[in-house]
């Protein structure tokens, strides 16, 4: 049983504490010194705020705009969540169809390739003409950008089932849905989450692009509006909020994986070791 003990053995709790502390301390220090450098450079060289505002100035502007921010954040979040949600609802069933049927795969792939080779930013204004200036066209842009990577990684995951596991499934005489539900989909979970992490970040990009084209609220809208009036600090502030939104949403996806599919994360770690 000594192999067992070796496998289960973990580093001491003190060592783990140090590793965690380092994991937090190092990024905080590097980010903090970058901000300080920025602040110092702006004051030292007297750079004017509409060219490069200091971090303090950005913060100041954000606080001043305070009451208007929640509404704008909410508008962007709505587009992100709707676009991301739609891409999940469409990409995963479609991936199952593609992975299960060569006919579907051949029928769908060229179409996907064409839509994906077309820059979404180029399509966005056209979509607005077709779908109007409402939430529908914004959601569609976010969806179109987020959808493809999720589809591809899900298909890859479904097809990555090892040959012997496929044999095992056939020996047990699983039905199509049993095979999908008990074997293929759980096996694809690490791939699906890799796709979801890309998709959530791309949804944010899609939402901003759509707001550049058509919106009367949202962080993207805030950027176009404030730059039009040379309020560069506020534009920077909106960008900061956007990144923060992106980081939080990404974190939520990571958290979902850790909470509901701990073995997916674990297995990843083992494979890397």
């Amino acid at each position, binding site marked *: 049983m000594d*192999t067992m003990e070796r496998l289960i053995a973990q580093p001491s709790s003190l060592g783990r504490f140090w590793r965690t502390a380092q994991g937090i301390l190092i990024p905080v220090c590097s980010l903090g010194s970058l901000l300080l450098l920025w602040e110092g450079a702006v004051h030292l060289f007297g750079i004017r705020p509409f060219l490069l505002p200091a971090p303090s100035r950005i913060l100041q502007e954000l606080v001043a705009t305070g009451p208007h921010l929640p509404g704008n954040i909410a508008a962007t979040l709505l587009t992100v969540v709707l676009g991301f949600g739609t891409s999940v609802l469409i990409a995963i069933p479609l991936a199952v169809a593609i992975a299960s049927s060569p006919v579907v795969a051949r029928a769908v792939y060229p179409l996907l390739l064409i839509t994906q080779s077309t820059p979404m930013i180029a399509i966005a204004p056209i979509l607005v003409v077709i779908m109007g200036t409402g939430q529908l066209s914004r959601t569609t842009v976010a969806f179109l950008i987020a959808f493809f990577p999720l589809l591809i990684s899900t298909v890859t995951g479904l097809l990555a089932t090892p040959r012997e596991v496929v*044999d*095992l499934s*056939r*020996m*047990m005489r699983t039905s199509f849905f049993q095979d999908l539900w008990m074997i293929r989909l759980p*096996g694809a979970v690490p791939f699906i989450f890799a796709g979801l992490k890309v998709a959530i970040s791309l949804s944010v990009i899609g939402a901003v692009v759509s707001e550049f084209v058509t919106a009367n609220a949202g962080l993207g809208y805030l950027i176009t509006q404030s730059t039009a009036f040379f309020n560069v600090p506020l534009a920077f502030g909106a960008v900061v909020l956007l990144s923060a939104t992106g980081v939080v949403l990404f974190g939520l996806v990571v958290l979902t994986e850790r909470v509901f599919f701990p*073995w997916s994360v674990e297995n990843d770690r083992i494979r890397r070791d």
Partner: protein
Amino acid sequence: MVSTPILALDAVSQAYLSRDGSEVRALDDVSLDVSVGEFVAIVGPSGCGKSTALRLIAGLDPITRGAIRIAGRPGAEGRDRVGMVFQKATLLHWLTIEKNVLLPVRVRKGRPEAADVAAAKALLDMVGLGQFGGKHPQELSGGMQQRAAICRALIQDPDILLMDEPFGALDAMTREEMCFELLRIWEARRKTIVFVTHSIPEAVLLSDRVVVMTPRPGRIADIVPIDLPRPRSVASMHDRAFQTATDRIRRSIYGHDGTADRPTL
């Protein structure tokens, strides 16, 4: 052996078309009867069709000619009486060991009953994995994983256990240990076992009969009865009968006893 064999291969051939369109015969006219409770090993160099034979019995590949009968019924009907162990343990890493063992039950009737859970626990106890039912496969060593895979193959209480080089991926020491473990399981459960391996000593140590196959096309070259007393142990390998059997198998594979210039294992 007057009773009908539990497993009968009747002039079974399998052929497939290669890339250039020519017919490749993986298995040519193979006939074999296996009786209830018998331990049969199939040995041969790679490409001799030994794994193909096993896959045909399991119903994983189509037969080109001939017939397979399981418990007197055509192969396709008797398939649920067959359990299989692969070279890799193929445990699902998101399930615990116990849930992996119960997977075939879940596939067949949805939710395992208390009796099934008890059966899984008993099997795990038998192979010494009693305390590991709640662990995940990646927390176990290769040999332990393969033992769990054997439990999974036995959970439906099949008549025939098919094993496709089950210890081929393990290190030499674990491999030897697993052989005796398997013999113990076989003594306890008295399953009919068809065991494919490329190791001649392993085949002789384990089985009642060794089927020797030669490649291109895959054919049975010899069927060697093993007259070693049971239960077998490490001492069995020093028995004269062990030497005689391995020599005979080597001769039918290499054309001589393999001691001159050929690798011995």
